[in-house]
């Protein structure tokens, strides 16, 4: 092609501005069509009084929002969602960090372990749910059998019987599903930290803790930022594991906001009300994301060469 043979040095930095937009455009269009348009419709819906999908509704202004903010169930679900995110974040971060650090070591079978650690992430949620309901059952479940046989508990435990233990169980199961994936991402980031840095620090007599604080954490900053952001957003919006395990129960103890949205829209048949909850949830997460980006974004996020 003749354009390419022109004598001017062409490279990325000298590329015409529109070219950058052109490359990003297809993805942006796709996301706009599948997220922005439905989102706009949801906002519209939230100002009406549609109950069942397909039935006509009237414009009711902010009535759904007023009702929402006065509703105890909404605030309880909101609080539970925060605990849910926090619980998952703490548990998954600890497990993922530990796993990444272990897998970074050299040991026989390291490669195999690095591949198969991911097993719990690659199976469908439905299978995860089947597995854990079955394992935790009080009549014939192996976990309870082991607990009783080892003398840890006298009676089988009903993991989903009380609100607190159901919530804890669902958080644990969701974390079980996601921590290996995060571990592998972390592992990848750990590998990217130049070994020379550690060697140089060792020469200077730095302790393990110092190395972790001064080399490891800064090296992971960019990854931790994105995982903190996306991880929080995705975790906040987890629906299927909770729904399939407990349907939000017992006694609404595991009803987080996404579960409340589904319950309101498709079991109480208040679609507009559900849309209002969704919009509030979306706005809240948006604000969170903006704040997070403002204060937690590493300098490298702006796309400059991050290291070297």
């Amino acid at each position: 092609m003749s354009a390419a043979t022109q004598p001017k040095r062409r490279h990325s930095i000298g590329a015409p501005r529109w070219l950058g937009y052109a490359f990003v455009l297809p993805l942006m269009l796709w996301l706009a069509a599948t997220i922005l348009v439905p989102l706009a419709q949801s906002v519209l819906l939230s100002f009406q009084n549609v109950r069942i999908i397909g039935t006509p509704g009237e414009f009711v202004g902010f009535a759904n929002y007023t009702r929402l903010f006065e509703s105890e169930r909404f605030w309880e679900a909101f609080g539970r969602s925060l605990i849910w995110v926090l619980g998952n974040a703490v548990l998954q971060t600890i497990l993922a960090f530990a796993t990444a650090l272990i897998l970074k070591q050299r040991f026989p079978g390291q490669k195999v372990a690095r591949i198969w650690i991911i097993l719990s992430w690659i199976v469908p949620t439905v299978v995860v749910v089947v597995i854990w309901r079955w394992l935790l059952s009080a009549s014939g479940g192996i976990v309870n059998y082991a607990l009783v046989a080892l003398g840890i508990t006298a009676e089988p435990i009903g993991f989903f019987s009380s609100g607190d233990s159901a919530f804890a169980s669902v958080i644990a199961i969701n974390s079980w599903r996601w921590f290996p994936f995060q571990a592998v991402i972390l592992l990848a980031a750990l590998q990217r930290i130049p070994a020379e840095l550690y060697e140089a620090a060792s020469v200077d007599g730095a302790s393990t803790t110092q190395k972790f604080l001064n080399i490891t954490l800064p090296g992971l900053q960019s990854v931790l930022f994105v995982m903190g952001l996306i991880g929080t957003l995705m975790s906040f919006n987890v629906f299927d594991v909770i729904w399939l395990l407990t349907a939000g129960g017992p006694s609404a103890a595991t009803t987080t906001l996404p579960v409340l949205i589904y319950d309101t829209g498709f079991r109480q048949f208040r679609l507009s009300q559900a849309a209002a909850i969704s919009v509030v949830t979306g706005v809240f997460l948006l604000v969170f994301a903006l704040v997070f980006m403002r204060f937690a974004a590493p300098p490298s996020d702006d796309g400059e060469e991050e290291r070297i």
Partner: protein
Amino acid sequence: MFRRNTLMILVLAFTLIIGVLPATAQDPVEVTLWHMEQPPHRVERIQMLMDEFNAANPDVVVSQEPQNWGEIYTKAPAAVAAGNAPEMLFAIPDFTPILKDLGKLQNVADFVGTLNEAHSFYPAAVAPYSYDEGVWAVPLYNMVHSLWFRNSVFEAAGITPPTTWDEWLAAAEALTTDGQYGIGVPANRQLYTDQTIYNLMINSGADEIYNSDGTLRFANDATVSAYDFYSQLYQFSPPDSPNWTWGEAEACFANRTCAMIMQFTVITTYDTQAEGDAEDLGVVAIPAAEGAENPGAISYVNGVMFLTDDPAKLEASQRFIAWLMEPENYGRFLNMEPGLFLPVTEDGAAAESFWNDPLVVKYRSQVETMVANSASGRLFGFTNGNTFPSISAISAQNLLAQTLQLIVIDGQAAGDAVAEGQSLMEEAISG
């Protein structure tokens, strides 16, 4: 070369003619049935019947799409709204008002009348679908709860099958031994729990949720005593029962962890996953409180709704259903799950095709008990002709079960919980 070309032209011409011919003749009417009988063997049985019908009716093609109960409440309204609803959709009574609101549901009063003359519906089967001056589904099959146990386990404990609540509670207590729970009762916020608690409401005289004017009468002493008794039985239930659906209850019974359960049937599970000794499997009506006037058990009359106003499609759909109700076909239809689905017509209850299934032959006395129990079966919100469509909102949210959770999970007193339950229901049915 020439010959090959000629051949090609001949083949082409032939395909064209073949392709055009059927189009010029009358196209068969295609109709689709959505149902929630998703286990593979039920799908297979329905397909077998459809194939037979299609062969005998060349101008109609009936096909099926199995759906999941868990999603149908989302999916069916969405499909109707988007204009791709099926012509026929299976229903339970509380599902019909939701679709009726969407304006596509056909009144089938005349069609049910015709079928009634031929087969005689049990009146209780048609009642839950009759309201707002219409009949909104054709009843197809019934399911009713009974109390299941093992005769040998009762004998070993020296007790007889309970008929009163005192006997029942005593039995549950006596049967709770090392490694065995007296009775398995669920407390999930889920349909199964709605069913088991309503069993007790029926048998304490609290089967009416509505007054005849459509206001709620859920909060009353009879309801409170039902909930109170349930929480007493619950003490003798396994610790994970708050998370149960039907399957866990059956597994608990099959592996002898639970001595008694309330369920539509345990026959298939008992026969394939447990010892399968027909002599030992006991079944009785749900025990009633002393002095309860009209004992019974929860029953679900499943029916089929018609969602098309196209005359040809409607006629084809109804011809298929009429064919299905013929005694020689009807029994085979019910026995897609032998020992679970019960007849809703008099000639169906006598049909040889129903009673000659091998599993029904083996468990004949149990099935006879179930059929007998179905005579006094009823469903909350659809009792004594007091049918109010707003019950859909109550059942879709499982408010009966939610009220129970207030007691057994949150530790409220039965009276307070039932009062709160009624206010939850009032909120649910309000505009």
